[in-house]
């Protein structure tokens, strides 16, 4: 009963007992009606509303084949509207069913996926004329996995022994060795969008990249590379879809994108470029911020480069810097201090007890450096050993980390350590780090996802992502065991042990985790920050516009 109907049906005794006054009993009788009105209003506000055009910023979209995005976030996000994968990563980063209703692992090297029934590919396109759409079957999954293994230009499933359709709705995938991250890593099964073979056969590879056809919540309406991409709602999608259209608007410059959002020209900025932009947008009453995931930032050491091949020197540097104050000044509250490489949002391996390993103690730092032979000899204020000053450049790329490092470098100089910042282009920085080209100390960065610890510190990745040139047989043994451990608790324990050894070795000084934000107009409801492909519709969220 609404408030209005309750008042119309009010009992006779609800009249005001005196002039201008409402009696206590009358007031009490009104409470249920008022409460009912409030509940009704609240329910109305939360009811998804169909309609509208959701306008999302993008920085570069040249093609829409989900397997050929080269890791380009904009292309991933746009193409993911047209397709579904078997699984997606939920709000808490756990794999959740999408096209696969459920899955089983009869043993550690076999996965059996049971598909959702009556999911149809989109029709009214050059591949499936109107009314001729067909159902997604296990054969489509087999085709898609094989195509992904063949043409994917960024991600991989590793070695797959076989993938086959057991029956119309069941797929069996086998690998030669256990892979506990197959579903939980955002760059593995969650990337395998299910595509119809007819689309590739009829349109060709280049044609498919311009006219993708899938089973997703939106159909492509028009695509002009690096200008606009417009999608229409897929009326036959297996979940409700609320926006009529989704329009991707090309705005490559982050400053202009921020202005466009604040001016109401776009609805969503999927990735706010940096902490300063987040801070600026957080003060806008018309906008809302959403956060999910982020990245790890630290000071890494090339442990082959003297004097950083000595543990006491690395330890001394860790003690010499007041990292908390630097992070508080620049990053907070849009990030948090890190004490390990694994962030709190990853479902395994996060270890808050690592905090005890790090302390700011400049006196102890100087003592340790003195024991290592670094003292101030010639009154130039710089510590030296055997005539060689303790002097280095920290290679870093542009971002808020430059300001954090500037504070830290100032602290180091006050102690007689001649540290400087060398800002580089991303490609040069990456190349220098991978080759170990004059890298003693460098800005360490990774997207803090599932297997980042192994990528950064496993000896098998030296010359690739292990730019520390760190090789510890104990750590490698822990990684080897964890990477094939099917039991989640045991895997987490192994991961934590490996991380502790790495931190005790001072291979990296963790600085902070910078959170990833999306910014959006308040009319956008239920947006989830993309981590792996964007999901506007999923069993957990369903984006709609309030006006």
């Amino acid at each position: 009963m609404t408030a209005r109907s309750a008042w119309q049906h009010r009992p006779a005794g609800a009249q005001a007992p005196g002039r201008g006054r409402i009696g206590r009993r009358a007031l009490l009788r009104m409470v249920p009606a008022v409460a009912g009105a409030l509940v009704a209003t609240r329910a109305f506000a939360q009811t998804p509303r169909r309609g509208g055009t959701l306008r999302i910023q993008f920085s570069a979209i040249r093609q829409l084949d989900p397997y050929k995005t080269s890791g380009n976030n904009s292309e991933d996000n746009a193409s993911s509207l047209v397709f579904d994968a078997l699984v997606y990563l939920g709000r808490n980063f756990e794999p959740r069913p999408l096209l696969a209703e459920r899955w089983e692992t009869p043993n550690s090297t076999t996965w059996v996926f049971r598909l959702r029934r009556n999911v149809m590919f989109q029709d009214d396109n050059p591949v499936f004329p109107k009314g001729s759409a067909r159902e997604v079957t296990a054969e489509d999954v087999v085709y898609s996995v094989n195509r992904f293994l063949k043409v994917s230009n960024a991600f991989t499933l590793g070695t797959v022994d076989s993938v086959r359709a057991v029956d119309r709705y069941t797929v069996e995938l086998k690998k030669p060795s256990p892979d506990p991250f197959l579903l939980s890593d955002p760059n593995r099964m969650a990337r395998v969008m299910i595509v119809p073979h007819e689309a590739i056969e009829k349109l060709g590879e280049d044609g498919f990249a311009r006219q993708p056809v899938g089973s997703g919540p939106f159909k492509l309406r028009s695509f002009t590379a690096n200008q606009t991409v417009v999608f229409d709602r897929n009326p036959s999608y297996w979940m409700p879809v609320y926006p009529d259209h989704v329009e991707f608007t090309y705005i490559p410059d982050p400053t202009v994108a921020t202005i466009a959002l604040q001016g109401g020209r776009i609805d969503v900025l999927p990735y706010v470029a940096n902490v300063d932009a987040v801070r600026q947008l957080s003060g806008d009453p018309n906008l809302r911020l959403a956060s999910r995931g982020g990245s790890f930032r630290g000071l890494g050491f090339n442990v082959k480069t003297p004097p950083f091949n000595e543990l006491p020197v690395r330890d001394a540097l860790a003690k010499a810097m007041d990292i908390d104050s630097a992070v508080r000044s620049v990053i907070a509250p849009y990030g948090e201090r890190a004490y390990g490489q694994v962030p709190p949002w990853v479902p395994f391996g996060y270890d808050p007890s690592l905090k005890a390993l790090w302390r700011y103690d400049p006196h102890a730092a100087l003592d340790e450096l003195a024991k290592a032979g670094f003292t101030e000899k010639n009154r130039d204020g710089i510590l030296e050993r055997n005539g060689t000053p303790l002097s280095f450049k920290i290679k870093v790329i542009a971002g808020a980390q430059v300001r954090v490092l500037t504070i830290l470098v100032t602290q180091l100089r006050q102690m007689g350590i001649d540290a400087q910042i060398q800002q580089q282009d991303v490609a040069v920085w990456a190349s220098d780090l991978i080759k170990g080209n004059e890298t003693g100390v460098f800005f360490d960065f990774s997207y803090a996802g599932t297997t980042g610890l192994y990528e950064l510190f496993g000896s098998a990745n030296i010359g690739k992502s292990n730019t520390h040139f760190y090789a510890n047989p104990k750590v490698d043994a822990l990684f080897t065991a964890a990477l094939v451990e099917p039991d989640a608790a045991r895997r987490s324990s192994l991961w934590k042990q490996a991380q502790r050894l790495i931190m005790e070795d001072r291979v990296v000084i963790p600085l902070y985790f910078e959170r990833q934000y999306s910014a959006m107009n308040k009319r956008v409801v239920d947006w989830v920050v993309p981590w792996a492909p964007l999901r506007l519709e999923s069993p957990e969220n369903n984006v709609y516009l309030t006006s």
Partner: protein
Amino acid sequence: MLRYLARRFLLMIPVLLGITFIVFALLAFAPGSFVSLMLSSGVVNPDAIARVRDELGVNQPWIIRYVHYLAALAHGNLGRSIVFDQPVAQQIAQAFPNTVILTVAATVFALSVAVAAGTVSAIKRNTLLDYAAMIVAVGGVSVPSFWLGLMLLLAFGLGLHWLPIGGGGAAGGRGGWEFLSHLILPAVTLGAELAALLTRLIRNTLLDVLSEDYIRTARAKGLAGFRVVSRHALKNALLPVVTTVGVQFGALLGGAVIVETIYSWPGMGLLTVNAIQQRDLPVVQGAVLVFAICFVLVVLLTDLAYVAIDPRVHYQ
């Protein structure tokens, strides 16, 4: 004249060969690579990395790679983008018309403003009009294009909502006002500095020409002031302007990257800078080749324009 043209076209070949050689060599030795970017960004597909290495031919000496590149070029093949896995020619074909449109529009804007302001300034020398025009001209040369672009965007795009804040280009089937509305702000931003430069140049050259004897004669014959300036003075003042526009047109072609970024105008500047940042070598090489051809053609057209303007100029 035909022999002159043929000679100029033939001379283009060694010039372009030289440019491709220098660019190829510089890129071969430049630090950083797309492979290192892939590895640092978490791309772990070893097949993808091997494919990129193969396409780039990193295991071959760079001079061998250059010869292969020239051989492909002789067949009209500019290669494939290693970032987007698309033909370079296709990407350039999408971006190049947008840059030409923007550059031509900026030049037309600059010339229109400069001829008007420079002429008025010269005729009304040492008056308020002259001083105002010169102050604006100095301002136009001094103001950085990224600042001007953002200010125009804020004022006309977001403040007044008169014009869109970005996008545009030749593709997408836009016509009429929709197309023009996307072009106005980028063209004004890009052309502002050239307009300022040309205003001062036209003023100064016109002042020289207006003091010539034949101008005095024309006035003495009773010709109207407007006719004296437009038919006699301006034509003679235009030669240095033509040279400047010719040189600046080439610079505008390559230097529109800031304007293209601010206004999301999908042109060659943005394509090239992104390719450089991502070390997409085939796209960089293709873009540089296209810029070089354009620049050489523009210089040729500038030389030919002299013939049209000044009948005393002959080419043999």
